[in-house]
């Protein structure tokens, strides 16, 4: 057992920190720090800066830009990136469809898609969830029927995050409705979102934002060679994709950063000369959250340092579960620190309510999604109970 990073890992961390804090445009990083919404252009620009330096897809196979790092190095890369307020590479591209194509796709698909995927020349959207297939993903109904050299796709996807920016979408579609098990009749299909018959409709969320979308497919014709891997094996690829989310499953550094920001606000002098942090109950809440975040970070380090090969450490579900809970708890303490100003969410620039207080409640509301999307916390508890505890 050893507390410190090895000299090599420490140097690696320093290298990452230097890169992220000097090479990524300050304007983008400021926007992240201030919790402002990034434009599509900013997200693309940030990813291209990383990709140019080989830091967008370090976990991919070496021939497609991977670095062969240890899990601990990947962890440090990710945390330093968040700490420096650098928007991470688009997860749909780099953690989801990219690794699936790299692992299961034909050579043609790899050649065609991987480089533009890494560079965010193609913006991928995810087409998994459906109105009647949430946590129970395998009940999906969007169908693809073979017609000559094409698949004809019909159905509806939902919760497609940032689908309004999407160039392409990777979808789970039902290609064998008669398969004995629901999971067996599903394939993994790549669809150009400019194809005739694709309609994207934004869904307004409770914070007033429109980051998720519904996507309709009406007789959309998709060339057969855009089916990844084997027909009816899509469920296997989807499980691979979801299990692949290991690094960064708990966004520790951004939670820490937001918590520290909130504490800074709580240390500002109020009108009566006191500070909020002088309230022992609020101070205790900060101390409690700091300890929990520390425990989470250390757990993430244990997972990263002890993951052998590609097998996820059993505590990964803990990271997702506790990671989102803490993310939510921290968005919440920001609201509490904002106090009555947290109501002024719609105040325009020129308001006497500072920007951080204006975004406090909408962000808090928005982050209720964190424990629902991408495997709800109920799903994580089921995984812990069955896979770890044998229940």
């Amino acid at each position, binding site marked *: 057992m050893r507390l410190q990073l090895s000299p090599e890992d420490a140097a690696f961390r320093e290298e990452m920190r230097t890169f992220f804090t000097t090479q990524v445009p300050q304007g983008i990083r400021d926007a992240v720090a201030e919790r402002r919404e990034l434009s599509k252009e900013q997200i693309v620009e940030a990813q291209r800066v990383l990709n140019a330096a080989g830091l967008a897809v370090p976990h991919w196979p070496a021939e497609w830009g991977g670095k062969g790092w240890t899990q601990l190095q990947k962890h440090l890369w990710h945390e330093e990136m968040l700490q420096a307020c650098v928007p991470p590479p688009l997860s749909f591209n780099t953690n989801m469809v990219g690794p699936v194509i790299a692992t299961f796709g034909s050579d043609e698909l790899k050649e065609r898609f991987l480089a533009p995927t890494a560079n965010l020349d193609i913006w991928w959207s995810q087409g998994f*969830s459906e109105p*009647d297939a*949430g*946590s*129970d993903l395998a*009940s999906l109904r969007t169908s693809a029927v073979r017609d000559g050299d094409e698949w004809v796709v019909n159905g509806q996807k*939902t*919760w497609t995050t940032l689908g309004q920016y999407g160039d392409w979408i990777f979808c789970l579609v039902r290609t064998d409705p008669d398969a004995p098990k629901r999971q067996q009749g599903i394939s993994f299909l790549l669809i150009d979102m400019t194809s005739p018959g694709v309609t994207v409709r934004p*869904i*307004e*969320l*409770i*914070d*007033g934002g429109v980051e*998720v979308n519904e996507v309709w497919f009406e007789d959309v014709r998709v060339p057969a060679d855009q089916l990844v891997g084997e027909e009816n094996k899509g469920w296997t690829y989807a499980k691979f994709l979801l299990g692949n989310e290991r690094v960064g499953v708990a966004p520790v550094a951004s939670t820490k950063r937001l918590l520290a920001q909130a504490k800074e606000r709580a240390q500002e002098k*109020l*009108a*009566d000369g006191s500070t*909020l942090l002088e*309230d022992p*109950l*609020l101070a205790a*809440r900060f101390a409690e959250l700091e300890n929990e975040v520390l425990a989470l970070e250390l757990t993430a380090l244990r997972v990263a340092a002890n993951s052998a090969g590609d097998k996820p450490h059993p505590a990964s579900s803990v990271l997702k579960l506790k990671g989102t809970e803490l993310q939510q708890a921290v968005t919440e303490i920001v*609201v*509490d620190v*904002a*106090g*009555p*100003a*947290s*109501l*002024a*969410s*719609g*105040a*325009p620039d*020129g*308001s*006497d*309510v500072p920007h951080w207080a204006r975004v406090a*409640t*909408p962000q*808090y*509301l928005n982050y*209720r*999604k964190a*424990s*629902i*999307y991408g495997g*709800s*916390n*109920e799903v994580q*508890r089921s995984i812990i109970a069955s896979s770890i505890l044998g229940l």
Partner: protein
Amino acid sequence: MDFTYDSEQKALRDAVRGLLTKAYDSARRRDVVSDEPGFDSGVWAQLAEMGVLGLPFAEADGGMGAGPVEVGLVAEEIGRVLAPEPFVEAVVVAGGLVADLGTAEQKAAILAPLSDGTLIPVLAHTEPGGRWEPVARAVTAREDAGTWRLTGTKEPVAHGARADLLVVSAATPAGTGLFVVDPTVDGVTRTGYALHDGGRAAQVVLDGAVGTPLGAADVDRTGDLEVAQARAIIIRGQEAVGAMQVALDTTTAYLTTRKQFGVTLNKFQALTFRAADMYVSLELARSIASWALLVLDSGADPREAAARTGFQIGRAGHHIGQEAIQLHGGIAMTAEYSVGHYMSHLTALEHALGDRRFHLGRLAASVGDHGTVDPLA
């Protein structure tokens, strides 16, 4: 000890519920709050017609002479449908202060038109960087040749842009004073905006605006403001109870209809147990809120009861709001579905008049002053 409504109260509740449920389904509410002034003037007029806007005021002042129980049940109905009308802001808070402190002339000039729906007064008290104390600092009032002039910024002021009249707290040589300000006079600049829960607020910049002391001049109104806040917390408690009840009902209805893995969600014991815990939170909060209403009704000092309500309701609203979303799943994150708006509004309610930690801190500060807490004492 009686927690039931009498027949007149039931009739009032049924009438208000009838009006509000007809006026606001989820879609209609979204429409109304998306346009200015953020509420339905027609509904406001109907409430006036029903006598609701004059409930707590003396009949001599144009009101109905009813008590907190009646006011509270209206608030509960408002909470059930998240009606966006400024009932609490205008009637309970601003109207309540005028009724408490105003001169006969002021009462006549304000309470009758408030009761008949033609004048909306609101309190402008919160200041940028301020918390929930009944003290004004950033806005000051100075008398010059018999005229009081107010300077400084209030924000956020609930419904401050739409309001026909402002009751403004301001630092005076005597402490914190209250002033009636016509928002159309020189020196008042208002910038209104919408809130996350569909409500409305404004920045109100005062630059030597003329105001009239509410009631006597040169009096410190800190205690009066605190009592008014306590009253608002207690009435808001009823509003929150209404909202929590519907959030829970919506959730249980969803659990019995939504299917996942081939069965309805109510087959998942982990979910139904959490719904049971929501019910427990709701019933405990309802008990405290009802009791606080009765304390207010009894004429006793409502401040401790308000702190107890603020804490219990804040915690319950938080618990029920969050769980309502989580037990639904993704659908509850959408603006089209109702339940997320309940959480949004419950969050706003908690932060309008003191969050649960604030109230707990107040209770903790005085916990050594008594042996037990006896509701019947």
